[in-house]
């Protein structure tokens, strides 16, 4: 992997969004990944609809949570994703209002990525932002800097928050992952979270996945 990479500088990442009082992080993580994949394959950065997944992905539980793997299946089954403009986010479950005619983006498949962080970095640099899930320990109070909680406090087996890896690098020799969160720009570093890289911190490497756009 290159020593550092940041998809934000390359136009593959939309602005930070806000899930509001709704446990829909899984939808934001997946749309963020699909936005990146579509940009890399088709050259257009489109802000995609999380509300479509909240309303129409019946495998998941809307604001009560969901799994990225189910969301990919739902996008394939539905026939694509509408844009944020066409199917805006309101943060609570409503009747599915998806229209295939309005779908602007589709995916062909989804893949599970390696749990090796070096391989994840290499995959990210070559293929785009990655949907991951982490243990959100301490994130309620995170303000800035590279988070590296003690392992027993941030177990990789207690994963409870889905986010998006958009880059990596080093700050003062400390390796980090740059993580796009969905709690608005008034949280963290303009909406981003920085987590220690290379130690499996908070299970960052456990549930990495991506959509495939041909």
């Amino acid at each position, binding site marked *: 992997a290159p020593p550092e990479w940041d998809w934000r500088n390359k136009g593959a990442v939309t602005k930070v969004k806000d899930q509001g009082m709704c446990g829909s992080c899984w939808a934001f993580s997946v749309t963020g990944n699909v936005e990146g994949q579509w940009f890399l394959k088709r050259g257009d950065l489109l802000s995609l609809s999380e509300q479509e997944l909240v309303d129409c992905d019946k495998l998941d539980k809307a604001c009560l949570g969901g799994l990225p793997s189910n969301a990919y299946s739902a996008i394939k089954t539905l026939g694509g994703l509408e844009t944020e403009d066409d199917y805006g986010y309101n943060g609570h479950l409503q009747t599915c209002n998806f229209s295939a005619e309005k779908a602007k983006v589709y995916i062909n498949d989804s893949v599970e990525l390696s749990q090796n962080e070096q391989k994840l970095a290499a995959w990210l640099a070559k293929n785009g932002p990655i949907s991951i899930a982490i243990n959100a320990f301490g994130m309620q109070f995170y303000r800035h800097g590279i988070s590296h909680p003690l392992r027993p406090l941030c177990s990789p087996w207690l994963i409870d*928050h889905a986010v998006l890896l958009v880059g990596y690098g080093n700050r003062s020799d400390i390796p980090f992952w740059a993580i796009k969160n969905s709690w608005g720009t008034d949280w963290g570093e303009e909406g981003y979270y920085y987590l220690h890289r290379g130690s499996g911190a908070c299970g960052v490497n456990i549930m990495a996945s991506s959509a495939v756009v041909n």
Partner: protein
Amino acid sequence: ALPRRAAGAQAWEAESSELLAPARFALEMYNRGRAAGTRAALGAVRGRVRREGRGSLYSLQATLEEACNDPTVCQLPVSKKTLLCSFQVLEELGKHTLLRRDCRPVDTKITGAGSPQMLQSSGSNFIQGSALISLFQSYPDEKSENFRSFSPLFNKDTLPEDFVMQVASIFKEFVITYNRTYETKEEAQWRMSVFINNMMRAQKIQALDRGTARYGVTKFSDLTEEEFRTIYLNPLLKELRSKRMPLAMSVNGP
């Protein structure tokens, strides 16, 4: 009907009439699928409400009474079992959703289930909230004494005055920065107690972090850990098994 609240508990509660609808909804969910005659009935209810946008999140503590056939739980000849339940109910546009339910039987032989004292002695956050009020506001002696006895942690006699003033000032700043509005003075006091608890938690997390991260006041600082988890996190990620997907090809070459 809701019972009268205990004197010492009034300070932080939402209006009891306001809790009735979410409490009845939680009860309805609890009783779903149960045959008539085995359904639980609502006893005492306490709780608080957090509002944001079009939604309200109710955190309730309630006692339920249901038929009991287990002599190890119920004192014979008492035929009713008392359960102490924590519910979280989200109300949006008049529609209720039960987010969390946690019920456990109360040993009526020991605790005197259903009494206000039982409710006061459960759930440390509730206790601390009540206790803290006495730090920031003068109350009649009797009430302050009640609060103090609930929790030694936030006893005004054990916390330095300058600390108290400093925290009150930080909380005020938080309220302005994040444009928080609380319905009642009691709710504001409760949120301030949560805020102080959270500042202490953030300090502990800070002390145990091996990176360069800074932890402190965020827009979530007036939420209890439980509220934060319920609203913003996704427990399904650890509870459900992810569907297997094909493995991605490794990246090779420079």
